[in-house]
């Protein structure tokens, strides 16, 4: 059934038991969200003793299934005040799964004013004092020190200085195979880990038995079909070659690339920061244009972005970060954006929320629009812990409140990412209604077996968008439980056997006979658990609304956000 580990940071007691029966049929986001809904007091202070942080690999993590190495992290969010699942690559998840660990829960708060490292091995779990030099250190060097101490190949989950300061946009960083950084970025879970005085969790899978497969032949066959669905699809080539940054030019052309703090949906310099330019730059400088965030990834949408001398600056250089600085804050310089992305990772903050916050710093006049050098210096303030740095590290909502702004693109306190909701209306409904706060990854997969709308969706019109957003969120919650990267969504959408193969792999691994309808039911139950938590925490439907300024027209299409409250509320009416 898998081990369920509880680490009590108050007493330093560790309990390693069998996974409770009620969680046996859950994994990934399904498990983290159900657990938080069951065990975390909804009205608790997110940085207080009653919050709990949980890590859980997905159903298929640790197997040979392509793209199955993602990890779900859950807790009550200090950014939104609601439930949070934040998802990451890296090596941690696959090690957990191979060690037979269903989940690790961190609870309580130590009395001591010092940081700890939680070490997980096949022999058990120990809690050490964190190496003093890692405290206050940037994440890249701190990971190196921890891997020198605990083993070159250990998985590392770590908070940076922002997590130590318990800033509400602090993330949890995870080492990848090259000891670079992947992030459970959104929602401030790094602050929760920091409140528990956990500097890092290291995991050593030496001696791990590996994942047990109930029906190995059937699994192998389904995994082969699934990998084929991924690798034969054009998206695999597009993402691999250009990364997620390929979306800059597409959204710009669609008039949905928010520019100058969401004043318009298109700009003239988009191509300078787009995926085509990024890849050409990396290739010309001898960097790595393709890279996987975890072992077994066949899409390889990540990259190593390098400087003019070919030295690594950053990886996992995503569209949303590049958009927030390059279009929304008008910084027409991919190199400066790369250094900013690096600094976000060093400090350990969400590069979406804090990059949107940079745009708000420009909106408020702290620095000029488009001034990349000033923006980079401002971002460095986060790690230094200056008052302004701490404000920026608490994300867009904090900057908006403290500088008296009304044009603040957040929902439930979380920054709206890179798709203007007026020009991509289905995305807007997901931003409004997901329990996570504005999150583009909350609506990412389409399961056509439960989709009730057909034909082409007009992104500028309301028709069909409620059903589409609902379907996207249901399917995504289910996919988030598999340990699969969300980019498998295209295989599910376009290749019927891709979806069947996904279900067949789960069935073969666990000896089950799930159907596509069961997967949809799982997605629905996860969304209901998450929404139930938020309701008990005090959220009402009034929280499911976009900021007022989206009533303004957005050029070039001059469209507005025109959904009524009643229409928005239909998204979660199932």
């Amino acid at each position, binding site marked *: 059934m898998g081990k369920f580990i509880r680490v009590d940071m108050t007493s330093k007691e560790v309990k390693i038991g069998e996974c409770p029966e009620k969680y046996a049929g859950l994994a990934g986001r399904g498990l983290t969200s159900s657990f938080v809904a069951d065990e975390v007091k909804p009205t608790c202070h997110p940085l207080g003793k009653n919050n709990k942080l949980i890590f859980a690999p997905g159903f298929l993590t640790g197997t040979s299934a392509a793209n199955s190495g993602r990890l779900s992290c859950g807790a009550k969010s200090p950014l939104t005040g609601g439930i949070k699942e934040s998802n990451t690559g890296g090596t941690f998840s696959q090690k957990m799964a191979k060690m037979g660990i269903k989940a690790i829960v961190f609870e309580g708060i130590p009395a001591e004013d010092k940081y700890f490292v939680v070490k997980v091995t096949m022999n058990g779990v120990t809690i050490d004092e964190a190496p003093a030099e890692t405290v206050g250190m940037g994440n890249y060097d701190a990971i190196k020190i921890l891997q020198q101490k605990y083993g070159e190949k250990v998985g590392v989950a770590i908070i940076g200085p922002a997590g130590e300061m318990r800033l509400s946009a602090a993330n949890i960083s995870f080492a990848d195979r090259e000891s670079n950084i992947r992030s459970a970025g959104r929602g401030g879970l790094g602050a929760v880990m920091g409140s528990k005085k956990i500097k890092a969790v290291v995991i050593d899978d030496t001696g791990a038995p590996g994942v047990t497969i109930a029906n190995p032949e059937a699994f192998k066959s389904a995994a082969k079909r699934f990998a084929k669905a991924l690798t034969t699809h054009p998206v695999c080539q597009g993402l691999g070659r250009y990364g997620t940054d390929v979306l800059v030019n597409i959204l710009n052309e669609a008039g949905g690339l928010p520019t100058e703090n969401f004043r318009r949906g298109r700009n003239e310099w988009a191509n300078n920061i787009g995926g085509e330019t990024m890849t050409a730059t990396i290739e010309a400088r001898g960097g790595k244009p393709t890279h996987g965030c975890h072992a077994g990834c066949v899409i390889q949408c990540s990259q190593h972005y390098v400087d003019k001398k070919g030295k690594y600056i950053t990886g996992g250089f995503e569209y949303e970060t590049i958009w927030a600085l390059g279009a929304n804050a008008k910084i027409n310089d991919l190199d400066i954006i790369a250094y900013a992305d690096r600094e976000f990772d060093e400090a350990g903050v969400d590069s979406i929320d804090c990059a949107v916050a940079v745009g708000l710093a420009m909106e408020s006049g702290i620095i000029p629009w488009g001034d990349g050098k000033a923006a980079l210096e401002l971002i460095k303030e986060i790690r230094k812990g200056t008052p302004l740095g701490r404000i920026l590290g608490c994300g867009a909502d904090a900057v908006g409140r403290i500088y008296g702004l009304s044009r603040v693109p957040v929902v439930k306190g979380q920054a709206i990412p890179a798709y203007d909701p007026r020009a991509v209306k289905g995305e807007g409904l997901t931003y409004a209604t997901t329990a996570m706060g504005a999150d583009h990854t909350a609506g990412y997969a389409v399961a056509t077996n439960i*989709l009730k709308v057909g034909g082409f969706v007009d992104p500028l019109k309301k028709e069909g968008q409620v059903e589409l957003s609902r379907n996207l969120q249901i399917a995504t919650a289910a996919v988030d439980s598999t340990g699969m990267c969300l980019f498998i969504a*295209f295989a599910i959408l376009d290749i019927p056997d891709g979806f069947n193969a996904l279900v067949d792999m789960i069935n073969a691994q666990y000896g089950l006979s799930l159907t596509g309808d069961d997967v949809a039911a799982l997605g629905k139950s996860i969304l209901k658990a998450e929404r139930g938590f938020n309701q008990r925490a005090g959220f009402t439907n009034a929280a499911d609304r976009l900021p007022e300024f989206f009533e303004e027209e957005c050029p070039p299409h001059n469209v507005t956000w025109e959904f009524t409250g009643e229409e928005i509320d239909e998204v979660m009416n199932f």
Partner: protein
Amino acid sequence: MSSIIELRAFMDLADLFRERNWPSPLEVDIRGEMTGAQLLAMLDIRPEQVEVVFVNGRAFTPPTAVLTGGDRVALVPPGVPGPYRVLLGFKKLD
């Protein structure tokens, strides 16, 4: 009235533009009105290389895209990731 359109291309179609020494945007004289499919034929671009033709920011399949002078047009190959092929109207849902 002008019969010139302004044409852009993304992803590997941008490489095609570079190989042919075409600037981006490329000004193309369509001599009246034509469909996206006709434009591709005129430019010697294979139909399977293009999933969507943007016309003034709206996505169409190549045969249904109607181009007139003054339009801003962009060619998008298959391979746009995420749910955006659905959300932006690229993909017909059955």
